[in-house]
């Protein structure tokens, strides 16, 4: 048992990287210097090569800013959205995304944001994607310890208290697991996408000659429902409209 655990930990901790942490950190520092000097192209290249192996909300913010300064609003939005998925409710990312979205041509009736949205998002997911997974580990440790105490304690008062505490810990554990599960599926979810082509005709069928239902422009966020073999994607707008877009017009968040 212990052997399996050890191997598992080893596998997680020491995955071989083409880019080790030291190199990545020096690339990040180079990118930050280039950005400060106004060379947004060089900064983007540096952050980009880091993002091949690593990800973080801050890295996505930096990348988004580089694209924004280079005038590529669609990619800026893509990276801000990616960053927000890693750290929902991040104030900087949200502000920059809102700012970039002002330059997007299409205005689709998105549902109004819930007033508590950001606070709830922050509470629910925090800045660290592994937060709930780690909490679930602590909760399981606490629960089983309390359970052990409840079994071992002799005095009926202590025993009863330990049982009650174990019950509370169990609820906490289940909550942690639930949140971790939701967060995990959120992080894995790549159904949302940003339009990269300057202008896209969204058609009724996945054929170039099909009726054009509506026209979307660069930077608009859509939900990809499915993709066919030719690469056509069926997309949905926040207001519920659905249509097919030709291949290579969107990039998944």
């Amino acid at each position, binding site marked *: 048992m212990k052997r399996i655990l050890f191997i598992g930990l080893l596998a997680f901790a020491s995955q071989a990287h083409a880019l080790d942490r030291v190199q990545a950190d020096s690339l990040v520092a180079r990118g930050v210097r280039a950005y400060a000097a106004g060379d947004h192209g060089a900064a983007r290249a540096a952050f980009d090569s880091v993002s091949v192996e690593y990800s*973080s909300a801050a890295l996505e913010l930096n990348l988004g800013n580089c694209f924004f300064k280079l005038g590529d609003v669609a990619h800026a939005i893509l990276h801000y959205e990616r960053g927000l998925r890693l750290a929902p409710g991040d104030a900087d990312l949200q502000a920059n995304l809102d700012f970039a979205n002002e330059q997007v041509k299409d205005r689709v009736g998105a549902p109004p944001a819930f007033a508590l949205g950001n606070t709830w998002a922050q509470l629910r997911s925090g800045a660290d994607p592994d937060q709930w997974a780690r909490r679930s580990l602590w909760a*399981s440790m606490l629960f*089983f310890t309390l359970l052990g105490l409840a079994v071992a304690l002799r005095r009926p008062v202590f025993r009863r208290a330990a049982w009650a505490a174990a019950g509370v810990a169990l609820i906490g554990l289940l909550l942690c697991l639930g949140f971790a599960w939701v967060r995990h599926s959120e992080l894995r979810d790549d159904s949302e996408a940003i339009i990269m082509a300057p202008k896209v005709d969204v058609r009724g069928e996945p054929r170039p000659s099909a009726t054009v239902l509506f026209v979307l422009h660069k930077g608009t966020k859509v939900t990809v429902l499915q993709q066919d073999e030719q690469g056509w994607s069926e997309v949905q707008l926040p207001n519920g409209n659905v249509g097919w877009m030709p291949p290579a017009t969107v990039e998944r968040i």
Partner: protein
Amino acid sequence: MLVAFLMGAAGLSAQEISFTATVDRNSIAVGEHIRLTLTLTNGGDRFDAPDLGRLVVVGGPQYGSRMSNINGRMSTAVTKTWIITATAPGKYVIGPAKATIARGSIATQPITIEVVKGAAGGDANAAQQQRANANIFCTVDLSKSKAMVGEQVLVSYTLYSRYGSLEPVAYDIPPLNGFWSEEIELGNITLDNVVAVNGIEYYKAVIKRQLLIPQRPGRLRIEAAKLTYRANVNWFGQGTKVEVVTNPVDFTALALPAGAPADFNGAVGELKLEATADRSSVTTDEAIEIRVRLSGRSNLKLLDAPKLGFPGDFETYDPKVVDRIAVTAAGMSGSREFQYTVIPRHEGRFELGPIGFSYYDPQAGAYRSLRSDPLTIEVAQGSGGGGAMVPRTSKSDVLMLDADVRYIRSGDLELRPKGRFLFWSWPWFAGMSVPALAFVLFVAWYRKHERESADEQGTRRRRADRVARQRLREAGTALQSGERAAFYSALSRALHGYLSDKFALGVAEVNTHELRERFAPFHGGQALAEDCARLLAACDMARFAPVEDRPRKELYEEAADLIQRIERTARA
């Protein structure tokens, strides 16, 4: 003599009457003159000019008469001569002239005139207009037919007239579209300049002059104007009413080239910028006048005030505009001065400006930016009006001037391997299962231990019980039989024996002091020692004195219990 005269008269009347029209030449160029002569011989002088069609009379008629006596035959010839010309090439016909004579009338033969294109004589525009009406016409001329938006263009209305006197009745000039215009003062207009157009002499005068500034690019048109005059007004008559319609003029306004500086607002020409302040050191809340003067040749009247861009510590009011602008045929020139009133609200040393202004130079075909020298203003803290007034800073909202994305993050970006999460990973499963397994192992161990310890305790208790029962058997028998002395003696012996066995003491060594020492290491040993001593004392008392303060049964139970307790305690 008289008869002869009468005869002569009769002879004269009987003489042949002829009426001829002759021209000195049949073919001319535009602007050249033809002399048309009508000669009536022996027919009097009652004849007039023929229908000349579109030919124009330049001079005449000149009258001439001739009398001749040939061979005693008298003849008279009356001639009228006109100088005529044509304003455009083509074929013209001089119609038949009619003369009224004693018996009926007589006519001349029509004459055909050929007019060819001549050398360009004078103003082409005037020549064009002349064709419509050779007696009076008006030309509209632009100083240039193409110009940049904002550039100045001069438009002149020139009247050509052959009438001796003219009185204006009405000018119907349609409004200009796409131009900003400024009338140029002409003073008294007199028709005294004589020019020839296509050989015809006219009185010429500029009757209207405007400075035009195109406001938008594209084709612009100056629509035809209708001028009404009364000609030849004199004491005897009203004269004749004449209408003149000018030619519509097309104009092309060119858009200014791209790449205008940010502070360009339509100035075209040639300008200089000068900025002055009426003083350089003031106290707070004291007004300063800042004068920004633009001078040169430009569309000065259309210039907007340049933006000062002063710091927020200054309150800036809308400027007063003072113009010294002359509008002449040479264009608009002079200066426009913007007088800004500025009130500093905070003390300190401030650099105002430089004030910038841009214009387009059509000569060079490029934009030019002007920068004034910065003005340095020293502001001292004012008294704030004196009295008991406490100076108060007026609060104002922070102005958001622009927006930008928030800056990037530096330092530790908390990088993590891409796409790998703790949840549902091997380490997570391991971490989740470790406490569960530990718990299961613990429970198993605990159960076993519990079972074992439960066994041990039971044995011990049973053994202690057995020892006590064995030791107390005699005392029990005596208790059953009710023998008093035997009971106490047996009880005492049993206790002594047990204790001496237990702690390996001699019978004589079993005393309170020794017991205390022996029991000391055990938990609760002190109480046990006391109990033993008390019980032994009670037994001895009852053995040797007839005093029984407690029932024997109770004493027996106490002894049994004590032994059990010692057994349990001393083992543990």
